[in-house]
């Protein structure tokens, strides 16, 4: 049809014009494309020429789609991927696999995005917030050592780009965050194999040590899946031993959440107690924590008495924390001490963490994890050292070391004995038989049942030393040294410990077994080197006494200072009767000076805990005199010192109320004739005038270590004053009568019937 068309010159002109217009227009379009081509490799949206009314193979979004307050649209993720899919640059495994930094979300309230890192038009983080092909490192090579890269807006030296927004995390010291820029630990090679970015210095921790902005395999853009805390344990390998123990709360408290409401199944076992950023306190603590030393309070968060957690409690009686070690005790690094801020400090105090490594159930085995229902004992229980030999206890309690080589090591002497936890000594360790660090029965971390809250300190001993106890072979007998009494009424002071009813040491406390005995030390002077047999029979030099009591009775003298003047006198058997034996068959070297005459335990005699055979007395004689004439008799060891006349006439009873004050110079006790107890009304007996413990009433000193012949100024007389008991009846004449009391020739003639001679 067109062939039939006839054109005039005008129409031909118009047609040619239209033809050239088309050609020219198309040519212009091609030039535009060519000049912009390199830009459009990424910025396809910039290419206005592509936005034609023809159907294109791509859809063009309208307007400024991404960057806020800038000249226009920038490249999209799709355009990035079209090169970074391996065919221009390989980033599939990094950027488009696993997790990446959140984009197209508004920054959280903890984040402050600086103005030079732009947000999108919706004030959201987007790729271009961090990335720009035209950033400060545009010319840099990949892996540029100065931190420049071709795609970051800013240099990124040691995660400096991250820290521009994450300032809180960067200021870790103020925000209780995981340290960055520290080189405290050696970072494992594996960390970098898994995707960590090496910092400018070896072992330096930076954000990208743990986080990977693209291609992160874990939540929170961690380089690996950390739901089992695998990332944490890469560096903190030792703590990995926590997994599957009771402290792996996935086992014991699976629904527990930390302060960030993170569930263990999502955030891993470490997260139960630690969170890497914005923690509650030191050590990245992720649980509520009370005031106090973090090295203990972290434990007490769950194990304290006033918590809601259904976990093991330490109980009312628990090992003290914040305790200062004795000055002579030095701990090695294996048992750390802590300063107030919870940091390890060799000069610090004892805290829970001193004994416990809460990440490891069994100090001797990484395999033994214990488990949810396994009851721990002294060999595990998150202790830093296995304690089934009480090694851990003895690291600090060095003064208790001798217990193991004594009969109080029940592993030897009573292996079947059990503490309140039901553990035998072989399980609990020698210390654990009597003491448990937590949930003890009473003070002193006592691990035995006690019958009452009275005289607790003595019950610690009688718990075993009773007729049904483990130490039933070593009982106190019916007559034993007073316990449960205070010293004030005796006007005695002592450096030995006294105890209140709860067993606390107190200056005005009562005498208890522990006053004289240190149950941890068999021999206070000579530690036992070779403890090979059990049930050793002791003497006054050992027997768990706090002080050696033989041959000098130093222990007794600590309290009975007035009796100490017997030392070196004729009544010191070291001087006058070294071979003499008490009822236990002990010589003075074995029994000590006091023990020659007094038996602290198991004395058959109630009177003065007499440890020797009573002397013979007739029915009308004072029992108290039998203490003296046991020796001062014809077959006694003091047979050379027998008074011719030894008794006072019993014409009338003597009232010595005014002379019963022991502190009085003219103290003259009167004794019950039958029982020998001190009374106010009675007759004169030997001790009325004699103080067997002091040679001379004028000299409060020890003897001279010689067997002396005495006179009326010494001879163990109580006093030589003009106001002695004799005066009460005999007037001043008594001074003369007093001198000749034992002399039948010189003394004033008493009725013959009243004169009795000692046989």
């Amino acid at each position, binding site marked *: 049809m067109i062939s039939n068309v006839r*054109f*005039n010159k005008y*129409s031909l002109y118009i047609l040619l014009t239209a033809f050239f217009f088309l050609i020219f227009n198309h040519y212009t379009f091609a030039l535009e494309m060519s000049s912009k081509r390199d830009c459009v490799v990424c910025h*396809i949206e910039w290419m206005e020429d592509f936005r034609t*009314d023809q159907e*294109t*193979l791509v859809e063009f979004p309208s307007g400024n789609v991404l960057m806020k307050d800038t000249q226009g649209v920038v490249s999209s993720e799709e355009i990035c991927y079209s090169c970074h899919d*391996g*065919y221009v640059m390989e980033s599939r495994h990094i950027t488009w*696999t696993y997790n990446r930094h959140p984009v197209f979300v508004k920054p959280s309230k903890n984040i402050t995005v600086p103005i030079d890192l732009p947000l999108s038009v919706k004030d959201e983080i987007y790729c271009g917030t961090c990335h720009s092909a035209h950033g400060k490192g545009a010319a840099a090579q990949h892996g540029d050592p100065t931190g420049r890269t071709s795609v970051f807006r800013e240099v990124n030296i040691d995660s400096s780009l991250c820290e521009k927004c994450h300032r809180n995390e960067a200021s870790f010291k103020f925000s209780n965050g995981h340290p960055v820029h520290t080189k405290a630990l050696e970072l494992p090679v594996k960390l970098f194999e898994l995707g960590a970015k090496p910092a400018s210095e070896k072992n330096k921790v930076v954000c990208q040590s743990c986080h990977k902005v693209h291609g992160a395999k874990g939540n929170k853009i961690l380089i690996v899946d950390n739901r089992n805390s695998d990332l944490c344990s890469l560096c903190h390998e030792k703590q990995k031993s926590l997994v599957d123990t009771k402290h792996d709360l996935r086992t014991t408290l699976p629904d527990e959440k930390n302060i960030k409401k993170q569930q263990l199944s999502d955030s891993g076992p470490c997260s139960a107690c630690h969170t890497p950023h914005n923690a509650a306190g030191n050590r990245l603590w992720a649980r509520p924590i009370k005031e106090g030393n973090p090295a203990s309070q972290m434990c007490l968060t769950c194990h304290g008495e006033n918590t809601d957690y259904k976990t093991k409690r330490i109980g009312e009686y628990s090992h003290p924390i914040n305790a200062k070690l004795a000055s002579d005790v030095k701990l090695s690094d294996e048992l750390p001490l802590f300063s107030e801020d919870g940091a390890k400090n060799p000069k610090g105090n004892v805290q829970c963490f001193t004994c416990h490594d809460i990440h490891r159930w069994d100090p001797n085995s990484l395999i033994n994890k214990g488990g949810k229902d396994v009851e721990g004992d002294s060999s595990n229980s998150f202790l830093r050292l296995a304690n089934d030999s009480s090694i851990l206890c003895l690291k600090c309690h060095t003064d208790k070391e001798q217990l193991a080589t004594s009969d109080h090591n029940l592993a030897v002497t009573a292996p079947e004995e059990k503490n309140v936890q039901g553990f035998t000594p072989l399980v609990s360790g020698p210390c654990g038989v009597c003491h448990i660090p937590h949930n003890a029965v009473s003070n002193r971390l006592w691990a035995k049942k006690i019958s009452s809250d009275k005289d607790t300190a003595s019950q610690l001993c009688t718990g075993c030393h009773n007729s049904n106890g483990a130490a039933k072979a070593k009982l106190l007998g019916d007559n034993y040294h007073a316990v449960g009494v205070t010293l004030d009424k005796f006007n005695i002071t002592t450096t030995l410990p006294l105890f209140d009813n709860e067993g606390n040491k107190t200056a005005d406390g009562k005498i208890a077994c522990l006053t004289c005995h240190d149950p941890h030390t068999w021999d206070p002077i000579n530690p036992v080197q070779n403890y090979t047999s059990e049930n050793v029979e002791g003497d006054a030099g050992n027997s768990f006494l706090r002080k050696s009591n033989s041959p000098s009775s130093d222990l007794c003298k600590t309290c009975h200072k007035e009796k100490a003047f017997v030392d070196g006198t004729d009544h010191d058997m070291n001087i006058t009767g070294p071979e003499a034996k008490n009822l236990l068959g002990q010589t003075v070297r074995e029994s000590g000076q006091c023990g020659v005459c007094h038996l602290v335990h198991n004395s058959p005699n109630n009177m003065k805990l007499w440890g020797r055979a009573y002397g013979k007395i007739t029915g009308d004689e004072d029992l108290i005199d039998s203490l003296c004439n046991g020796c001062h008799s014809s077959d006694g060891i003091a047979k050379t010192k027998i008074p011719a006349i030894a008794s006072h006439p019993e014409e009338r009873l003597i009232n010595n109320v005014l002379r019963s004050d022991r502190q009085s110079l003219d103290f003259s006790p009167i004794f019950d004739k039958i029982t020998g107890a001190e009374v106010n009304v009675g007759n004169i007996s030997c001790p009325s005038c004699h103080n067997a413990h002091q040679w001379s009433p004028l000299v409060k000193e020890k003897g001279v270590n010689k067997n002396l012949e005495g006179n009326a100024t010494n001879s163990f007389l109580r006093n030589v004053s003009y106001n002695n008991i004799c005066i009460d009846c005999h007037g001043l004449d008594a001074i003369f009568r007093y001198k000749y009391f034992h002399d039948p020739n010189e003394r004033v003639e008493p009725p013959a019937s009243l004169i009795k001679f000692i046989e």
Partner: protein
Amino acid sequence: MLPFLVQLILIIVVLFLPASSFAIECINTKFLFDIKPGANQPSDIALDSKGNIYLVDGVNSRIIVVNDNGGWKFSFGSEGTEKGQFKLPLGIDISDSGKVFIADTGNSRIQVFDSEGNFLYMFTVKAGHGEAPSEPVDVAASNLNNFLYVSDNNNHKIKVYKQNGTYDFEWGGFGETSGEFRYPGIMTLNEYNEIFIVDVLNTRVQKFDPFGKHIVSIGSWGVLQGHLFRPKGVALGKKNRVFISDSYMGVIQAFTDLGRFLGVICENNRIKKFKSPVGIIADKNDRLLVVEMRGNAISVLKILE
């Protein structure tokens, strides 16, 4: 002589003729099924003589083998540098003899396996003097002259080896002129051993004779039909059709082997969009298998026209 009004109408028609000529030319297909064997951003695909499909699952460092219906057969490879291990491989081809050639991109080498995935041998794609480390992204095994073409997109060259790994010759280099490349990628050979090479950032597919002599470039830059923006895959079909995938535009277009645009792959006369299509292949049953990198799938289509 026509009245002036008729002439004016004719002129207007002529003026609008180009616009009407840009109506989409469709080559209709029918979607058959997707194969989703658990790959992560797979890249390339090859068929063996039995019709089994070998898929490069590079991010997972393995090759997945499924049957022609997508049924799982086996996989081989793991991450690493040892024999039989891969580091982000991208390309694959299978020779008529059944050897499976893998462009082990991250390890700068070619690994050769039998059809069961057993390792046979490997060789390094060496960088020449002054060159960057090689990054072989695809291989094409010639069945006529025993050549193995390797596209090294880090040096913008095609390196040619004997199939036993002996280096033979190379051509290319960075540039935009014919015979030069800006990131050569997936390749395919026709029955005459002429090779079609995707030239990614030059937005074209170049066709060469077996020895690297440029024959023709297919496609041009743009976003209209017949244009390429980010070409990735090339495959040959019946009727001398050259299928080219475009990963950004998400389309596949067909050209003649001399570069004339034929049409866009459509379904029901509407452009068929793919999720970042890369490697493609047409099988003997006129099926077009498209690797959708971001779809983690192989989309199987029946070519209807």
